[in-house]
């Protein structure tokens, strides 16, 4: 197990992400942040706070549960029984520029599920993908618009994002 980002580095990557998003998003765009449960939810809240500060106005933040949209629910290769949790988005996503937040972009499958889940909630102006860690191994034609860190890991390795709210500490490790 190797630590690739410590607590300080995670914070600085999130600040960088907020800065880039703030600088490239046209001012007329109506920004909103939506995190994919469960790590993405926490990262989305942190990113929304940083972005609100950058832009000097509150940026709404919500949580998306993608369980019902997973492509392995009825598959023999499923990874065990997923827990259905709630989607909590307290604003209308129509015509907004949505920053979809997840911890790791790997196969692209959960992003595909998240896109389908989002589209069932309305018609945003655009959806952009922001991840803390990007790694090789894509199975779908999906790429991140904003990535905090590119991890150079092999197919057998696993990137684990630990966050204080869910895991007791902030760090990204490779197993």
């Amino acid at each position, binding site marked *: 197990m190797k630590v690739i980002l410590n607590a300080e580095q995670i914070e600085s990557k999130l600040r960088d992400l907020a800065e880039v998003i703030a600088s490239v998003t046209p001012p007329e765009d109506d920004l909103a942040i939506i995190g994919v449960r469960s790590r993405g939810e926490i990262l989305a809240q942190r990113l929304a706070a940083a972005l609100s500060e950058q832009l000097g106005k509150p940026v709404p933040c919500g949580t998306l549960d993608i369980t*019902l949209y997973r492509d392995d629910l*009825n598959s*023999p290769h499923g*990874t065990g029984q997923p827990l259905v949790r709630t989607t909590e988005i307290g604003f209308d996503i129509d015509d907004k520029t949505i920053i979809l937040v997840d911890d790791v972009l*790997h*196969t692209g*499958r959960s992003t595909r599920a998240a896109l389908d889940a989002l589209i*069932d909630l309305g018609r945003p102006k655009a959806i952009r993908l922001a991840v803390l860690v990007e790694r090789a191994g894509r199975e779908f034609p999906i790429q991140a618009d904003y990535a905090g860190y590119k991890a150079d890991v092999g197919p057998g390795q696993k990137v684990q994002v630990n966050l204080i709210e869910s895991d007791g500490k902030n760090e990204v490790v490779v197993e």
Partner: protein
Amino acid sequence: MNRILNIVERHTHHKSGGRHGTGMAIMRKGKQFRWQRKDLIGLRDLTAEEIIHILDTARGFEQISTRSVKKAPPLRGKVVVNLFFEDSTRTRNSFALAASRLSADVIEFTKKSSAVSKGETLLDTARNLEAMGIDIVVIRHSAAGAPMFLARSIKACVVNAGDGSCEHPTQALLDVYTIRQMKGSLEGLKIAIVGDIAHSRVARSDMWAMTKLGAEVTFVGPPTLMPGNLDQLPVNVSYSLDEVIDKVDVVNMLRIQFERLGGNPFPSIREYSRYFGLTVERMRRAKSDIVVMHPGPINRGLEMESEVADGSNSVILQQVTNGLAVRMAVLFLVNQAAAEVST
């Protein structure tokens, strides 16, 4: 041996599973509950943990009904049969809507329009449906035990939508779901179930669900409408609504089922209503935050005065809304369990 190989294979898959691997890690850390029943026959056999799991899962389905696209894909390509040998509008529609909101195809089957009227047995009917490749059977039958019999005979998932006066598990699940919404938890609550207990499968399923979740249940009604085995059930009994109305947190008023009542269980409707009806006058003596429930359809003025049914303590329509979320959760869970068995 096969089983071990399977576990090893799954385990390796987690490791290379990227995002999904991360998901599993959370589950292994927390106390991950695993739903294993491909059928939902009754609540008597369920543990409190299993009941809570259904209720928690249902929370995630609640919002599907409130958004513009009222559909999600988890049962896409699955077929659900509504196999109703007894009349029902509410429960049948609720199951049909729940199944279609999960993207399943739904076949409606009623006794009148089927070969049952030509003498086909339950098992033959079910086997014929199964031969068409159905995945889930939702069954209502006048004979207690019919769903269990069916579950043992066919491979498809079986969900009980009411069997005789035995159980009506999804009604009880939506009842406890609604109570949880109103009161947070059932632990320590006092609940009265009032009316025709003897003929009520709702009363029985409610009793199992509510007592397993820590509530104290009292059956209230005339002695003629009480079941014969009261001493074996985990409930209190009262023959007077006036005695209990000021003490309970929840009151569930059952419908007088004229179609099931033989003989003369009570002298007159007016007399029943006087002793066991939920009137405005009785509501004045109840706790101000009492939750008033009814499984529907209401005989207005008999079990309950209209002012009470439409009053601020009534959650009757909320029960109907919650029924959808709960039934979606049940269909989702039995299908998940079946998917795991087949792998």
